[in-house]
C-alpha cells in the first residue's frame, strides 16, 4: 500500500473545516516555512523534491519557480490553475471539494517562496460548489491569522482570492488563463515572453496546477529529499490518478509513481478491474490528449516489460508504442466500446474548445470532426484514414499553444493502433451501424520483437 501524502486525512469527518484540518497537523508547513525558512530555501527544497508539474506537462516545479524574474518595486503573482477540464481528469475537483485547506496551505507557502502578496486560484466556472468551499476555507484561514496582514507575526502579508472562469478548456493553458484572469477572451499568448517574465498584468507570474501546489505541503513538512525517495527515477513522489470509463471502481487514487499499471487497473485497492466482467480493450492513461493505447501495449511496453505508472515508463516507446502520464486522467475502455466513435467524440470536444486563434487548429479540428463523423455514420472512405493523419500532422506543432497537439495526438494514435477497426467501418459500413468491432486482437500478447 502506497503512502498517502495528499489524501492521508481525506476520510476524516470535518477535514474540510479549519479546526479539524489544523488538528491533523494542518498548516504546520506554513509555520515551518514562514518562521524557519527563507524563500530561496523553500525553492531549493522543491527543487530537491524533483516535483514535476501535475497539470499535464510534467515540467519540474522548482525549476519553473527559479525562472521567476524579481525586478524591484514590481509585484509578483502566484496563480493556481484549477481550470481542470481535460476529459478524464477530476482529481483537482476532488481535492478542492474534500480537503480545501491543503490547497490553501500550499498557496501560502508557495506565495511566500515566490514573494507574492496577492495570489489567485483560477477555478473553472462550472465548479461553483468548489468555489464556495474554497471561499469559506479562505475566510477560516484568514480568521486564524494564516492569511492577511502580518501572518503569524512574521511580517509577511498575503491576500488570496478565488476567481471563476467562464467555461473554456483553453483557459487551462497558462497564458490563456492569465488573459482570462485579466477579463479577456482566453486566447493563448505568444511566448516568449514567458509568464515568469511577463505574466499577470505584465508582472512576473508563476502558474501551477492545484496538485503541484498541494504537494508543496508534504515537501516542506518532510523535506524535499524525503519526497524524492518516493517514486522511481525522475518520477518522484505521489500522483493523484482519476480513474473513469469502464473500471469497476472509478475514483481518485493517490499512487506512488512507479506503481505497475496492471496492479493499478486490476487490484481491488485501485480500479478493481473492468466493470461488468468485461475485458479491457484500450486505455487513455493521462487525459484525452495523450495517445490512446490498445490493452496489450498499455500493460506491457514494446519490449515486453511491465508498464509502470510513471512519466518515463508510460512514454516508453515514444508515440509509436507509448503514451504519456499527462494529467493522470485515466480512462479505461471495455471490449464493447467503439474506438472510431470515441475518437470522433474527443475531436468534437477539441473543435468546440479551439479558441480559433490559429488556423491549423481552428479549421483542422473541424475537418477531423467531419471526417470522423462520416466514418462513424457509415459514409467513410478508405482514403479517410490517411487524410486524418495528414490533417493531424499539419496541426501538430503549428499552433501557438499545445491545444493543437492535444487535438492531433488522439486521432493519430487511434489510427496508428486501431487502423483495422477504422477500415472495418468503411468495408462493413452498415454492419458498423448496428454492432461494435469488439475486442479483436487488441489484448493479444505482444509479438516478440526481432532484433537485428
Amino acid at each position, binding site marked *: 500500500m502506497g503512502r498517502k501524502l495528499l489524501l492521508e486525512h481525506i476520510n476524516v469527518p470535518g477535514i474540510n473545516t479549519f479546526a479539524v484540518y489544523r488538528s491533523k497537523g494542518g498548516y504546520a508547513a506554513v509555520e515551518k516555512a514562514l518562521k524557519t525558512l527563507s524563500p530561496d530555501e523553500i525553492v531549493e527544497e522543491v527543487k530537491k523534491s524533483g516535483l514535476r508539474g501535475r497539470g499535464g506537462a510534467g515540467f519540474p516545479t522548482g525549476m519553473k519557480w527559479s525562472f521567476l524574474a524579481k525586478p524591484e518595486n514590481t509585484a509578483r503573482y502566484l496563480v493556481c490553475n484549477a481550470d481542470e477540464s481535460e476529459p478524464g481528469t477530476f482529481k483537482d475537483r476532488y481535492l478542492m471539494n474534500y480537503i480545501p485547506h491543503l490547497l490553501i496551505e500550499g498557496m501560502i507557502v508557495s506565495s511566500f517562496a515566490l514573494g507574492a502578496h496577492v495570489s489567485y486560484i483560477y477555478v473553472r*466556472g462550472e465548479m461553483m460548489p468548489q468555489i464556495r468551499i474554497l471561499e469559506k476555507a479562505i475566510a477560516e484561514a484568514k480568521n486564524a491569522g494564516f492569511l492577511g496582514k502580518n501572518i503569524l507575526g512574521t511580517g509577511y502579508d498575503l491576500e488570496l482570492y478565488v476567481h471563476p472562469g*467562464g*467555461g473554456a478548456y483553453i483557459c487551462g493553458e497558462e497564458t490563456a488563463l492569465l488573459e482570462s484572469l485579466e*477579463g479577456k477572451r482566453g486566447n493563448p499568448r505568444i511566448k516568449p515572453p514567458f509568464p515568469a517574465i511577463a505574466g499577470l498584468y505584465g508582472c512576473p507570474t508563476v502558474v501551477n496546477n492545484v496538485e503541484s501546489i498541494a504537494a508543496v505541503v508534504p515537501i516542506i513538512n518532510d523535506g524535499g529529499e524525503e519526497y524524492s525517495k518516493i517514486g522511481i527515477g525522475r518520477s518522484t513522489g505521489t500522483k493523484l490518478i482519476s480513474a473513469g470509463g469502464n473500471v469497476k471502481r*472509478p475514483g481518485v487514487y493517490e499512487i506512488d509513481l512507479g506503481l505497475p499499471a496492471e496492479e493499478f487497473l486490476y487490484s481491488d485497492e485501485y480500479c478493481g478491474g473492468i466493470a461488468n466482467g468485461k475485458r479491457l480493450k484500450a486505455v487513455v492513461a493521462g487525459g484525452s490528449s495523450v495517445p490512446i493505447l490498445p490493452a496489450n501495449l498499455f500493460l506491457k511496453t514494446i519490449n515486453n516489460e511491465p508498464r509502470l505508472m510513471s512519466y518515463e515508463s508510460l512514454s516508453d516507446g515514444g508515440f509509436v508504442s507509448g503514451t504519456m502520464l499527462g494529467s493522470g486522467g485515466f480512462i479505461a475502455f471495455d471490449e464493447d466500446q467503439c474506438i472510431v466513435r470515441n475518437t470522433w*467524440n474527443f475531436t468534437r470536444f477539441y473543435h468546440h474548445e479551439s479558441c480559433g486563434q490559429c488556423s491549423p487548429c481552428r479549421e483542422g479540428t473541424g475537418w477531423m470532426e467531419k471526417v470522423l463523423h462520416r466514418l462513424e455514420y457509415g459514409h467513410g472512405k478508405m482514403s479517410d484514414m490517411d487524410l486524418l493523419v495528414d490533417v493531424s500532422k499539419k496541426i501538430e506543432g503549428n499552433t501557438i499553444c499545445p491545444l493543437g497537439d492535444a487535438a492531433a495526438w488522439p486521432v493519430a494514435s487511434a489510427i496508428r493502433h486501431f487502423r483495422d477497426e477504422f477500415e472495418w467501418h468503411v468495408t462493413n459500413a452498415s454492419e458498423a451501424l448496428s454492432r461494435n468491432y469488439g475486442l479483436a486482437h487488441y489484448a493479444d500478447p505482444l509479438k516478440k520483437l526481432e532484433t537485428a
Partner: protein
Amino acid sequence: MLKVEDTSVPVEFSPELLTQFADVASRYPKGKQKSALLPILHLVQAAFGWLSAPAMDKVAAYLNIQPIEVYEVATFYSMYFLRPQGKYVLEVCRTGPCCLVGAEKIMDHIEQKLGVKEGEVTPDGLFSWRGVECLAACGYAPVLQIGPEYTFYENLTNDSVDALINGLKAKSNN
C-alpha cells in the same frame, strides 16, 4: 418571457447586486478592474437568467470599459447564455468518458421527458437542456449540472433524471 430581440427592456441592477459587484472588483489591483468581468457576468446571469445586451452595456459602464469588451467575453465562454433559457437549465456532460457509460442515452431520455430539443425552452418556461463538454466529474458519470449554483447530479439513470425533473416541477408549483 423576454425574446432575444427585446433589447430595449431597461435593466436595473439591485443595490444587493451592486454590493456584490463592488466586493468582486475589490479583489484586483487598482486600474485592473476589468479582471472582475467574468465573475460579474456570472452574478448578472444568476440574477436575470441570461445576459441581454442592455445588461452587458450596464456592466461595461460599471467597469468603465467598452461594451464590445463585454460582448467578446460573453460570446467566448460557454457558460454565458445570450438568449433566455428555462428557469432550470440541465447541462449534461457529453464528452468521451461520460459517453462510455451512457450519457447519450441520458440526453435522449431528457429530450423525450421534457419534449423539447436541445437549446429549446419548455412551454411552461421551466426547463431547457443542452449537452456540454467535460465537467471534470468522469468518475461519477453520467453527470449533469444546474446553474446558477451549478449543483452536480451524478451517476444518472433514467429514473434519477425523472425524479430530479419531477422534484423541480413540484418545487416551482409551490
